[in-house]
């Protein structure tokens, strides 16, 4: 990555994120199935940010950093989606 000391940002400074993910109050889908959570993050870029779920996912539900997947019926409330700027 190239840089400089004159106050200008180098070209690799592509990440700028200031707004929280906007997730519907309820996410519903049918098992077995999945939901792409990146659609709720403005300007999502896998190389500059990572996503995580705050809260406990029920059994049979996994999150791989982008997608919620469920193998069977499940319910959970109070979950949050978090962006970490890498």
């Amino acid at each position, binding site marked *: 990555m190239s*840089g400089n000391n004159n106050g200008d940002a180098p070209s690799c400074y592509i990440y700028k994120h*200031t707004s*929280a993910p906007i997730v519907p109050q309820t996410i519903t889908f049918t098992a077995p199935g999945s939901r792409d959570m990146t659609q709720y993050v403005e300007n999502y870029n896998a190389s500059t940010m990572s996503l995580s779920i705050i809260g406990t996912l029920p059994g049979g539900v996994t999150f791989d950093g982008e997608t919620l997947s469920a193998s069977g019926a499940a319910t959970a409330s109070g979950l949050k989606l978090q962006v970490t700027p890498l």
Partner: protein
Amino acid sequence: MKRMLAFFVLVLATFSASAQPSSCTAEKSLQGRTDILHCEPWSSSTWWQASGYKDDGEKTNPSPASGPDQTSVQTNCFAGGPCLRVNCYAYNNGGCGGMLAHHWTIPGTQQEVYLRYYIRMASNWSPENYCGDPSCIPSGAIGENTTSGGKWPGLADVRTSADPSGQCGNGGAYSDGINCWSGRLRYRNCTGSGGADICTAGGGGETTRIGWYWYVPPASGANNQMFAAFDNRAWGTDMAGSGGTCASDRLNVGSTDSDSTSCGKGAAGLKNSTWYRVELRIKMNTPGVSDGIAEAWISEVSSDGLTDVSTQKYTKTNMRFREVGHDNLHVRTVWLDVHMGGEFNGPLTDSYIELARMVVATKRIGAFKASGSYVSQPFTLQVN
């Protein structure tokens, strides 16, 4: 009964409120996270007292840290906030090799820890700015003992002479995988074979290479006090094992001049007067098995301290930090070490480095963000 319930609720609320240290308030991108163990903003002139730092790495009965007399808290030096200046005074100005050596004990028995901090070297910084040989004083010149470099903060589980095992994991007391391991950072100059500047591929102006400074088993010189660069340049790095690649042997901790076979990645070197974000990861190995993980990400930070994108600069997934029968080795302390050389007489001229926004967590930490919002509103998941 109601009073007991109210007390229980109060205790629970207090615990919840303290789940993330109050010192993390300025870290907007960390809000809501439950994996954050420590934030050090260096905003207090008595910072080492506020968070329980220790004088050294003693495990048995560590002493509270005494004042680090070569440091000072600076205001408005990183992203509009504070930082810690660690002065490196010249040999004729009271200088010595070690400027800072405190430990912060990580709570719990953590098997995986991430450590993030920002670091900036002074405009006159040079890894060659020291005198390791009394004969160079007062007539010595920059360039003495130029490859030795020095140490910067990292992670560890070491022992001192006050512990039953005796000193282990520093000062030449090699790791046996039973009583200690350590992974500080080491810096050194950019000089390679024949005097070539091997940092020039970074864009020019680099003065300093960095990498891990390992004390890991076996307890021999093959894998202790060795430089494991955060770049792919082979010069000066350690490949003590067989097979010639990072993946082929746990003792191959260095580089080969190729990204594909090196533990270190990309171009070498850091520039003076520039902030860099350093994030380190240690995941302990299954005792006796080479399945531990060491990773490092480095990024150059924009002049306002607010924008940077990290780059993975080191990854090794066959590390061994501990053997069967070890003394509860885990990621036990943050070793806040700033040390020129090994032991020597001091820098030739005054200089300094600065540290900012240190965070310890059990998951990837990422960049410091003083503003913005990073957590959604609560939602319900309904899978039919």
